[in-house]
């Protein structure tokens, strides 16, 4: 009985359960955001113009409060999209207020480089495993090995090994 349960029928049941739970959660999440939530999420994407490294959502500076009020106003008007609101606020300031770099020009690199690093890491791992998969040919001991062994034998207990006897 236990065998059947933990065998493929059990796993099938498990995947079915996961799939149905995910569908439920997907259906639940399609609720629209409330105005407050939307304001908050936009505020989190805009830098406070007078602070060092805080977003408008975090900062308690009056300037941040004013921008929050502006965002709330635009959200309540319901005319603009999130991106348009951010652009509008960003344009109104002499500084760059976007907390996420734009996807253009050199700013694109900040998104691109992690992808490159990820691809590089995966490629490196794959290559390593492919190499390990090949049987290692038996070359016999190298000169290095002999030297190392000789050094180790000379200073058997390591107490007098000065650390360079086996170096180059």
């Amino acid at each position, binding site marked *: 009985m236990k065998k059947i349960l933990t065998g493929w029928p*059990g796993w099938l049941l498990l995947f079915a359960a996961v799939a149905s739970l995910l569908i439920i959660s997907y259906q639940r999440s399609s609720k629209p955001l409330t105005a407050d939530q939307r304001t908050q999420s936009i505020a989190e994407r805009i830098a406070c113009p007078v602070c060092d490294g805080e977003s408008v959502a975090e900062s308690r500076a*009056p300037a941040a409060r004013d921008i929050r009020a502006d965002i709330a106003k635009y959200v309540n008007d319901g005319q603009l999209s999130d991106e348009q609101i951010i652009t509008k606020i960003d344009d109104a300031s002499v500084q760059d207020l976007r907390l996420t*770099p734009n996807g253009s020009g*050199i700013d694109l690199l900040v998104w691109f480089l992690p992808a490159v690093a990820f691809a590089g890491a995966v490629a490196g791992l794959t290559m390593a495993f492919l190499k390990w998969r090949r049987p290692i040919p038996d070359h016999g001991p190298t000169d290095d090995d002999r030297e190392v062994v000789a050094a180790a034998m000379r200073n058997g207990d390591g107490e007098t090994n000065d*650390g360079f006897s086996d170096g180059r």
Partner: protein
Amino acid sequence: MLLATLNAQLGTSALIIGLTASIFGVCAQVIGVRRHDPKTIAQGTRFAFFVFGAAVMAFAVMERALITRDFSLSYVQKVGARTTPALYNVTAIWTSLEGSILLWLVILGGYTAAVAYRFRTRRTDPLVGWAMAVLYIISAFFFVLTLFPANPFKLAGSIKDGVGPNPLLQNHILVLFHPPMLYLGYVGMSVPFAFAIAALITGRVGEGWLMETRRWTLFAWGFLTIGILLGGWWSYEVLGWGGVWGWDPVENASFLPWLTGTAYIHSVMVQERRGMLRVWNLSLLVATFSLTILGTFLTRSGVLASVHSFSESGIGPYLLAFFGLVVFASLALIAWRGDRLRSPGSMDSPISREGAFLANNVIFGLFAFIILLGTVYPLLVEAIQNRKIVVGSPYFDQLGKPIGIALLFMMAIAPALPWRKASSEVLSKRLFWPAWGGVVAMAVALFVGADGITPIIAYGLAGFAAAAAIRQLVLASRRQGIRGFLGRANGGMIVHLGVILVAVGLVSSNSYSRQQTFDIKANSTVTFSGHTFTYTGIEKFDQAQRFGTKALISVDGHIYAPATTTYKSVGQTVPTPSVKTGLTEDIYLVLEDPKPASAADPIRLTVAIKPMIAWLWIGGLTMAFGTVLAAFPGKRRRRGTEPASAPIVERIPASPAEPAKPANPVPLEPVGADV
């Protein structure tokens, strides 16, 4: 007049003694080791206690100066004030740059002395000798910092009072714990680094040095973890925006070494077990240590904007030069020894414990890369295009989410993977019930009202990972009794449980926090998210160093008092949130401006409901507890070299006449793992 400058002279002499002792220590160690002279080495080791003593003395003198309000020192003028309460006057020492370097020195001196004491019977071993030399070099560098660019004992003009510590740093008891904990972790990474360098110099890259530093690394890692979480807690309790983590450069600077350190703690097991990944592990230790230096540079030199840059000075070039020295010396050593470090073993299958550790390392490494990139990216753009941009939390959140999910997934399946190779049969059997644990977690989350695909997946994986950890603990304790909780594999599972608690806390508080700002008239009530908030009055307070207003809010019948506080000497007003902590949700109250002048005035109150924040602190405690368990030896102590951990050693024949056989391409069967 002598009395007035006594502290300055005492402190400066302590620093000079420390620097001299460090330099003598380096010389004695290097000469002693090179000449095989036990006497010189013994001398060299003794300097460690001088270094520690000097650092403690400098620290104590500074504390004395702060407590006695000796305003002849410019540092006391900077962080001291006659009105600062005793507790915050004592902690004022690490609220600014110069004093925090003193704290760094005390801890580094302590570690150096501890290494000297721990290895006293083996001090003639070149490995220990070189490690001590490296530690002396590091402490010499920090003594130089305190003597030149960041001298805390500089004399200053005849001001008789100061402004006191930054208001945010005299507002909560956590400033007493967070910096020392963080530094115990940060600075502790010097010890494994020193042994790594020593192993490279001596060429003794067998697993010996790993054993020596295993617990030191765990110790430092544990404190770093606690320090980071306490930092989050401080930010939650003090800053008033209700978050624990803002991806600020200072926070990133502490998180980066944690990431590489965590990667090391995992991948080192592959080396101990299979003798592989030596270069990689050395590099991770080097990276961890150099990231602590780089992080200090980024946050202290003023090149980056940060809420936390409480102090800036001319220390930048020194730190950058030292960072360069560390990186390039280590790289040169690895390049020189690298090929000799290569191990003969090979991995049979990516679906194995060692494969999982490799994947874990890739994820942690990638995470560290992304955070470093995001942190220094504004500098890059400014250098190329002379244009200021900001890379803020949305960037890190967006990229951090998939990485967090991937780490949870790894945490779920890795404990079930056997070493070398996993058959699908074994996997299916071992993963089955933990996977159902994940399903249950998802179902529970949905039942209590969670929504959104990403959080639900995260909860599912967290449940899966928790079940996998518990499964291992149950199996281990069934066989070994109470010892089943000890040792790295089992203690590590408790650390995993702590990480899962933290992850669940983060996912919940990030996804389901809600907040609203209310204008409340006197004695009226608002309702938010099922709780009632009644504004019952105000309470004004006026103390020597600050004045402010508390609003008394009755939350479901219990009184909470968020306040705003103005610090007189700097005129800065800071919020003092009031938090009702609970296991399932926190209620976070912030009194906003304008503050009420009298009890008749309305107040503006921001109410935030933060689900499961407390899980972060419980998780942190669990992680610390698990780290302690992991530091205990797991199984009975065994003597000698086990083939499992030192396969190469086994292959060296007893007589030089018979040259070494090349290591077997298929290493010995690991002990204890039947595959």
